[in-house]
């Protein structure tokens, strides 16, 4: 396996800065300590220009083969941001960092190349992003749906915040279901139904 010796979070950011220059749009390091000794854990956040996304992941693999936790995403309005959340240097006492590689895709062109040729375990998460964000992963070896049922309508993407998100008529609120009719009478008489027209906590119809 490739094995660069252990780097500090700043060294990782610096080496990305050297390789990608302005292509590295944003870089930050956050840290957190808990318990009595407050031993620090580090998270590295890197956001790249769209075309540098695959080279950025290839570089991470050169540093140390990472563990891909998941691909998260944000609907930012006109863009979808995908965040590939990795961890590197596991196996070293308190030496592991989270490395998040972010890339923004305009909603007019929601395509991203697959990384399953680099990290086969990414398939699961890529399939999920296709169905939940409506992103097209080009070159994905298995583009079927993952979690959504087969009869789920096409063109509805649950995590989108625009008109392609879940429409209100698909939301079933538990309190609207009422008591099943084929049951014995309840031991305590039911209260009169609440006044209609209020949708507390749910989507407005």
């Amino acid at each position, binding site marked *: 396996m490739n094995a660069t010796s252990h780097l500090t979070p700043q060294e990782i950011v610096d080496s990305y800065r050297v390789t990608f220059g302005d292509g590295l749009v944003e870089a930050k390091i956050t840290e957190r300590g808990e*318990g009595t000794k407050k031993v620090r854990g580090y998270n590295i956040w890197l956001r790249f220009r769209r075309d540098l996304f695959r080279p950025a992941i290839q570089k991470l693999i050169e540093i140390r083969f990472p563990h891909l936790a998941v691909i998260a995403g944000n609907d930012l309005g006109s863009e979808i941001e995908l965040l590939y959340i990795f961890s590197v240097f596991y196996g070293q006492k308190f030496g592991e960092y989270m490395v998040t590689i972010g890339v923004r895709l305009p909603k007019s062109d929601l395509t991203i190349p697959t990384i399953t040729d680099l990290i086969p375990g990414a398939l699961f998460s890529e399939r999920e992003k296709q169905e939940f964000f409506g992103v097209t992963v080009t070159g994905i070896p298995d583009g079927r749906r993952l979690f959504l049922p087969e009869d789920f309508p096409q063109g509805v993407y649950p995590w989108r915040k625009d008109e392609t998100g879940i429409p209100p008529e698909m939301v079933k609120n538990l309190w609207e279901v009422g008591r099943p009719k084929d049951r014995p009478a309840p031991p305590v008489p039911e209260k009169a139904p609440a006044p209609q027209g209020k949708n507390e906590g749910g989507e407005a119809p």
Partner: protein
Amino acid sequence: MSAEKTKKTIPYTVPIGPVHPALKEPVMFTFGMEGEIVKTVDFAPGQTHRGIEWMGMRRNPVQIVHMTDRVCGICGIVHSLSFARAVEQIVGIEVPERADYIRTILHELERIQSHLLWAGVAAHELGFDSLFYLAWRVREQSMDLIENLTGNRVNYGIIQIGGVRRDISSEQRPLIEKGLAYYQGLLDKMATLFLEDSTVRMRCRDHGFLSENDARILCAVGPTARASGLNMDVRQDYPYCAYGDLDVKAILPPAETGGPRGDVYDRIIVRLLEIGQSVEIIRQCLESLPPGEILWEPKMAKLLAACKKAEGEAIGRVEAPRGECMHYVRMAGKEAPESWKIKASSYSNLMSWIPMLQGEQLADIPIIVASIDPCLSCTDRVAVTRNGRSAILTKEDLTRLSREKTRRMMQ
């Protein structure tokens, strides 16, 4: 099922699933069989996707904490802890030290009960029912302890943003110590029963093999990855809660047992050893339990106001009994988070089923599927399609196949 699928003769397509009555989170398997041997494996999770992330993006963080309790039916703490840790980082909440320790104690008690639950399921799948009863009997001790500390057996409701909701009193400490002594005395017996039993060895040794490289590239986590020799444990690698103060080492199958080989047997070893490790961690935490507050802000309105103002993104991750559990949260100065992604540990482990199951026999499916301790297991009904005619086998039939194999091997 489509017409061209039912027309196939060899390999036979054996769909299994999608519902299993005993364990949650159903999954649908489709096996391509040649005789008894599994050639291809495909599975479809999400048979009961509840859209919890969607619901969370419409609720405030305190409401979500209670929802995260209900993500999993066994891990009552890992999701709420991951989510709370992510929000605490965004808001900039300093969790009191005592709360960090109480979180750690409950986190480890949960590992004990989860591993024992799994041990029972594994024994049951092998047809070793007396061991299944024993494992679930001794699991009750940890469930009682959790109930005593949190008030609940499942869905503990103990985590709050900024701390925990219940303290550990001085009267409760002897109870915990008694429980720890109970498990300490039991570990050798459990190890003997599982690891020196020739039937368990025959059924599990060199079955469900996952190589170290496959574990790495398929992003496996937890005991599944460690049994394949991957030195990875969030408690060791990445400090959180009280683990930064402790000396936790990832448990790999020891060399004297011939490990790590990456088979079902190694996964049993790792989990059994981890029960002992958890007992040790709880003991250390009790010894050095710091005094002080347990909540950053007990007034809910103040807590919510602080959360509402916060902007930023963070990752909260913990080592769940099944491996890394991770929540990504992004907040943008609104009541509800802008984004929320849950990554449960089984999410990372399911893909390793494919190399594990290929080349194995139909009767080995239950124990191999169970061996990653999925948040779902084995099968409810099996529809066997042969020459265009399908017959429905029940979960009992598949368990029977597994048990008959055990008996054949014992003769």
